[in-house]
């Protein structure tokens, strides 16, 4: 099992800082921004991005978690998954600009499920997608608005994102 590291600790921080600036630029400021991470690592990334953005913009930006398990269309193709808690910031999402955050974008099915899950909670005015790693192989017409890094991979390879908060290490590796 050969794994090579494609992003190191510093690369991940730089990517997040850049994404934070891009989000602020496209939103023309931090107003009405809500960052929602998709469990588990997306939640960590959303929390970090929200911190970086609030430091740059000097205003607090709320972040939360959006679980998509119950909205997936591929549940019957895998062993039963346990749902994760969904945490919506106190201000809700109605009329807000919601940025969905996930670690790896692959088939796009999680994001489709996330859009359905959002709909059951409220009606944001804009929904955007920020992703740390885009590895291609989309099965649905979904594309990210903010990308940490494009990593062309084969379907057989595994892309592992490890974050300090979840895994005690900070790196992105690709495994053959």
């Amino acid at each position, binding site marked *: 099992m050969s794994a090579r590291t494609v992003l190191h600790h510093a690369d991940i921080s730089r990517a997040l800082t850049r994404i934070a600036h891009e989000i602020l630029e496209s939103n023309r400021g931090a107003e009405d921004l809500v960052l929602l991470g998709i469990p588990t690592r997306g939640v960590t990334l959303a929390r970090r991005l929200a911190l970086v953005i609030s430091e740059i913009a000097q205003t607090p930006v709320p972040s939360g978690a959006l679980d998509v398990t119950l909205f997936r269309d591929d549940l019957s193709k895998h062993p039963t998954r*346990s749902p994760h808690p969904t945490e919506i910031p106190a201000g809700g999402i109605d009329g807000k600009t919601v940025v969905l955050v996930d670690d790896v974008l692959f088939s796009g099915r999680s994001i489709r499920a996330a859009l359905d899950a959002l709909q059951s909670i409220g009606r944001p005015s804009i929904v955007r997608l920020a992703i740390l790693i885009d590895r291609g192989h989309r099965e649905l017409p979904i594309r990210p608005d903010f990308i940490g890094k494009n990593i062309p991979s084969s379907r057989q390879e595994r892309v592992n994102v490890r974050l300090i908060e979840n895994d005690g290490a900070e790196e992105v590796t690709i495994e053959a």
Partner: protein
Amino acid sequence: MRHLLDTKNLDRATALRILDVAEDMADTQSREVKKLPTLRGKTVVNLFFEDSTRTRISFEAAAKRLSADVINFAAKGSSVSKGESLKDTAQTLEAIGADAVVVRHPSSGAPQTLATSGWISAGVVNAGDGTHEHPTQALLDAYTIRKRRFGADSRGRDLSGIRVVIVGDVLHSRVARSNVWLLSTLGAEVTLVSPPTLVPQNVSLWPAKVVYDLDQALADGPDAVMMLRIQLERMNAAYFPTEREYSRRWGLDALRVAGLPDGSIVMHPGPMNRGLEISSEAADSARSTVLEQVTNGVSIRMAVLYLLLAGERDNERGGDL
């Protein structure tokens, strides 16, 4: 999870998984849109050979909130009254394409038979069989106790050190049996209080203490007092002299409720015989969790149906959740 037949054989990890998934299900029920697409295309049959209000409605609500199709079957008014056997009824459901069968039956072991006989391939959920078990009731009771104790911090926790007193007709109660097994698996201490005539013979094999005096059991300050319904329909002998005497010695009245420590709760699986095992003051007091239990029941049944139906089908019985 392939079937849910009892709590006696439910291990701690599986029980906690059901309770934790129920937390997530409960969260979705406070949203603007309560309906989830999770079980779209699945069919759940409620097969009820015995009367029920809340259990059947609760399973129906749970299945519908998850977008499953629900077929309700009551033995009354069906071909069962023409003498159709359980096997033929079950195979009819199989032919209709049921993915899960929720069964209530007056005979202990009927769900087990359905699950293991090979008549049907659907998952089986026991919704109460004779005097055997009623696992989803015990799960919702455990969930209610945990929620009242730990609030939003409930996930992953068991009931270690929590003391529960179960009072009343233990002999005929499948709710008591399921609770004794589940609560002790989760680490709670269970005390049964009952007239000697309503204590089952094999009770010494249960992980529970037996006391005959209600006031003595309440004096220890339990965290939860669970009142059982006096099942008049199953009473074919004189188990106690009069209802008034039962009510005086084993009924939960306002005075007994007032003596309970702060934070302890009064539970009843319903339907209640007000004035017999529980007084109206006790049933309607702030300690009473009767309606919470009903609400939590929907979350628990959503969790059970989800764990039974959502994932890849494993064909081993009692396979991994």
